[in-house]
């Protein structure tokens, strides 16, 4: 397996140590999408969609947490 993927979390943590969890999570998602989609013409759309989907998921999670007092 490609080492880039393995070393990603470390680089991301280093670069984003001051950022919030959501940003960190989304950056990771975006990188994964780009990495997976390398060479594909619809890369931008795929990556954008991944971010949208993830934000939706994060918001849903945040709402649930609030709803259940977590």
């Amino acid at each position, binding site marked *: *397996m*490609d*080492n*880039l993927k393995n070393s990603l979390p470390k*680089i*991301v943590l*280093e*670069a*984003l140590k001051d*950022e*919030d969890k*959501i*940003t*960190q999570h*989304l*950056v990771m998602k*975006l*990188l994964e999408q*780009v*990495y997976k989609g*390398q060479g594909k013409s619809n*890369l*931008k759309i795929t*990556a*954008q969609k991944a*971010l949208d989907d993830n*934000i*939706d998921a*994060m*918001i849903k999670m945040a*709402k649930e947490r609030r709803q259940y007092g977590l």
Partner: protein
Amino acid sequence: MVFKSITITDFLSYYGDNYIEFSDMTTIFIGQNNTGKSKLFDAINYALYGRIFPTDKGENGEWIYNSREIAEFALNNHKREESLINGDDAVDVRVQLDIEKDLSLIRIDRTISYKRLDDAFVFASSLLSVSEIDKSTGREIYSGIQEDASDRLEQYFSKSIKNYFLFQGEAASKIMGLQKGGNFSKAVKDIARLSVFEDAKEIADGYTKHVNNVLARKMNKNKDVLAQQKKYQEEIDDLEFSLKIHDNKKTEAEKNISDYSEKLREYEDKLSEMKEFEEWFSKKKELDDKVKRNERELKDTNSEKMEIAEDIVFYKIRDKIKSFKVFYNNLENKGEVPPSIPAAEIRKALEFCRCTICNTDLSDGTKAREYAESRLPKCDTDKLGNFLREINHSFGDELENIVAMPKKIEAIIERKHKLEDKKRILLKEKEELDALLAQIQLNDSESVEKKNRIDDIRQSIRRYTDLLDKAKHSFAHHGGAIDAINTKLQRLRGQQSLLIGSAPELDEHDRIWSNIAPKISSAMDKLYEIAYDRAYNEVQRKSDEYYQEMTKDNAGLAGNIRIDTQNSEIYTVDEQGNRIRNVNQGNRISIQLAVIAGILTIAQQQFGQQYPFVTDAPVSALGGDNKISTIKTMISAFDQSIIIIKDDTVTKNKTNDEIRNLINESKSVGIAYELSMSESQTKNNQHTVVKRIKG
């Protein structure tokens, strides 16, 4: 990935079918000059990429990709002669490379077909075919030709890597883009997959814009917010526009800094080449000046001495006159000589018939007049008396000087002697220097020419220093402007984000969205910077590790590898971090090999794929012990390496014996071949003979 074998048929110096098997570890080819070593390298390059580098042109060569051009020299001479004699209508040359990759076996087959035209064979067509079969089942996974096959090959071998596992020592820089300003740093970026971060950054920026657009549409109902948003956006657009301009100017300044620095380095190098002459020249000038000064001083002393000598003569005469005057006065007092009355006085007295001094009557017929008339002819003596009086009066003050004269003369003579000694020494020094200057063959016209050249170089250095200063100033100026604009942009975007957040039409999702998007953009910026630094540091560290290993037995090649990412340049630095200049070809090749090994190691890590290392004649230029340690480093750095080395057996070279020992003794060297030229009578019949000497 492992290269299993190559079959070369009637290609370049290889006549007939030549099946050459490669070891999974190290395969070494040795051969003397013109035995087909580089042709083997060409065959591998041709098979993989359909290209050939004219290595005989060294760094001046360019890759040849055009099949028609390659066909002009690809057909083996022996084969051509034979086919002409046989009356064949067509003939083919072919290179077939078998590769094992993961679970597949890949065969690359390239053929150039010729057709007969009168007494020659001309290019007819070329064909590339690629096939891939599953190793375990034997089932064909892929089979294709021409462009489709070419695309398939691109998937096996990344574009970025393709220049790096085929190393040609004599033309390494050009082939690999290692020369200053070459594509090497771009390749490192590609190999380290920095493009992932670049793409991600671009997408994140696009995403931010997309989010803003969507939100702007949503806010359409809220006119005030929209108007404010529009205002912000206009400001942002303006700032982004000027950011772009400053960025361009900064890039231009950066390029200028690099160009002018390089120019300055070139001129400084040129100047340092002239350093010896310049030192001689300035020393000579200094000495010439000294001699001239000395000569001037001597001349001054001589003239001073001359003046004094004249004075002495004068004073001696004066003394004589003085003593004569005393003598005359005595005679005068005794009345033995007439009184010193000037002739003019006597004439005057005779005219007025009365003495102007004693009032004696001098009328005609008086005795006094008779006496006076008799004295008149003797007045010359009287004149002398007057003259002596005048002299006495004039020089009375000089008496002290006259007394001091001998001492003064003594001091002057001493000074003269000293100066003469000094002159002797200086003339001797000048003579010695002239002899030395003659030794370094500096005649006047050459000196003038060299001096003019130095003046030109200095002038150019001044010019480029000025230009460099301006470029640096421009770089700093635009950099400052960019920082200021970025700060403003950040502030504006923050305000924009707050504004969007305050828009009543937006829901929580939108607010989070608008908040997060710019964060992702800026995070990607940071990430790219970090990844970039990491990639270069890692390549540099690894390269230096290899370099130390290669040169451990050669104290003359001390230093550490540095990769200058700004100028895309590779060199070594000493312990103080100063760039080591004047590296010879052997050293340069060591540096390049180390960097190649470094890049390949990183590529292997990033792609999760081992690459074979194929190298043609890299070590011929390396000296003594360095040669063996370099080969050993290559063997240990790569899982599979194919090393083509010049055979120096004829010279009974110690190092060469060591290479043969290495072939015989090293367990890593699985297979070795000796290449030679067949002993045919005519050059056209000669061809490479491949003899397996190990494995």
